């Protein structure tokens, strides 16, 4: 009973943190999907410069730890550039950039997995490269990419906990602030874990439903 009381007392703060976690994740992933798609298409064009941009981005972001990226954006950049970022903005940028790097690879592999006869068939009808990509290649490729997308989304949701390092009051930091005051780390972190699990499990269920629905067609 004591445990439940402690959790219930902390719940309003935790739910607020959970809201912020979801907010950062959703904004970041929408932006990351867009960047991932653009750079993913860059990576398969015949233009060397575009391919190089895409490769450099992926290699740099994947080759450095996310925590370093977060600290770099929040503390590093403002110290040389004349900007100041809120923890929220810095967090969104860091999660976006990081997720985008992995999504580039998912888009690239997904598009490459579509038989090249599909592009040729589209082009011979008279569609441009862009039209063929949009109407014929991507609708097929994205269906295949869904499991990989969901995987990356889940990773990114969990990655947001690192934003506690720059003082963003998302779910993890909300938990820390509670047990720092009441010393009930076990109960509070247990609750924090459950709330993460709820977010991620809901996403998993949604993706399974989506895959089943798209499979019918």
């Amino acid at each position, binding site marked *: 009973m004591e445990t439940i009381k402690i959790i219930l007392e902390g719940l309003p703060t935790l739910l607020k943190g959970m809201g912020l976690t979801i907010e950062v994740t959703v904004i970041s992933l929408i932006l990351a999907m867009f960047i991932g798609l653009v750079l993913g298409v860059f990576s398969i064009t015949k233009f060397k410069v575009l391919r190089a941009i895409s490769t450099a981005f992926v290699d740099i972001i994947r080759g450095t730890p996310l925590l370093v990226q977060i600290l770099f954006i929040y503390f590093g950049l403002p110290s040389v550039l004349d900007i100041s970022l809120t923890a929220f903005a810095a967090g969104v940028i860091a999660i976006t950039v990081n997720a985008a790097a992995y999504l580039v690879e998912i888009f690239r592999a997904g598009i490459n997995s579509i038989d090249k006869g*599909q592009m040729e*068939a589209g082009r*011979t*009808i*008279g569609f*441009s490269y862009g039209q063929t990509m949009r*109407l014929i290649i991507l609708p097929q490729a994205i269906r295949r990419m869904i499991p990989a997308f969901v995987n990356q989304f889940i990773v990114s949701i969990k990655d947001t906990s690192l934003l506690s390092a720059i003082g963003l009051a998302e779910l993890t930091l909300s938990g820390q602030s509670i047990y720092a005051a009441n010393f009930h780390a076990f109960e509070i972190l247990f609750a924090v874990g459950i709330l993460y699990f709820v977010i991620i499990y809901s996403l998993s269920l949604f993706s399974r439903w989506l895959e089943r629905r798209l499979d019918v067609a």
Partner: protein
Amino acid sequence: MSMIEINNLKKSFGKLEVLKDINIDVQSQEVVCVIGPSGSGKSTLLRCMNLLEEPTGGDIFIEGDNLTDPKTNINELRQRLGMVFQQFNLFPHMSVMDNITMGPKRLKGKSQAEVRELGTKLLEKVGLVDKADVYPDNLSGGQKQRVAIARALAMEPRIMLFDEPTSALDPEMVGEVLQVMKDLAEEGMTMTIVTHEMGFAKEVADRVIFMDEGYIVEQGTPDELFNHPQNERTQAFLSKVL
């Protein structure tokens, strides 16, 4: 004016020279069959005709328009050239009807009612009206290829290109596809066909071209080429396949 005029066409993949010096003239309503051993360059030649392969040298004119001129709008020009592939290349995420109608709908701005009517007409032509709402995965190879022909015809092309249209089919399905092609030829469609079906070439072609090692070795009427081949290589090839 020639429908297709090809002058000194060359095509290399890296160091490999696939087409060496090709000159062809295809007239309106002419049915040309291209035959030859595998690796002779015949598919590459066909793919150059709509710029799926970019020629290394030479010129290709489609109804007088220079295909290789960078100023040519290739997307517009390709609408005049229907293409049928060995592997069908139907769009698996669309119904048969949508496969056929997406071109005219998106590129010619036709209404849903118009394209539906056009699609039905074309499906009647290839004998598959009852398959309009089926997805390609539920069709046999022969049916897929007939849909692919209908899809190409939906853009009302001036010329039809066929790249080994029956090579991926089970033997019992070859006939139904060749029949559709024969009907097209009888309607006066200008056609260039890369094929291994010698019987079809004999019966339907106005002219047969024999290619080997990147050259046109010999060409003539089916009677000339099949019954009185002049070149040794033609004779050797025909003795193997006939």
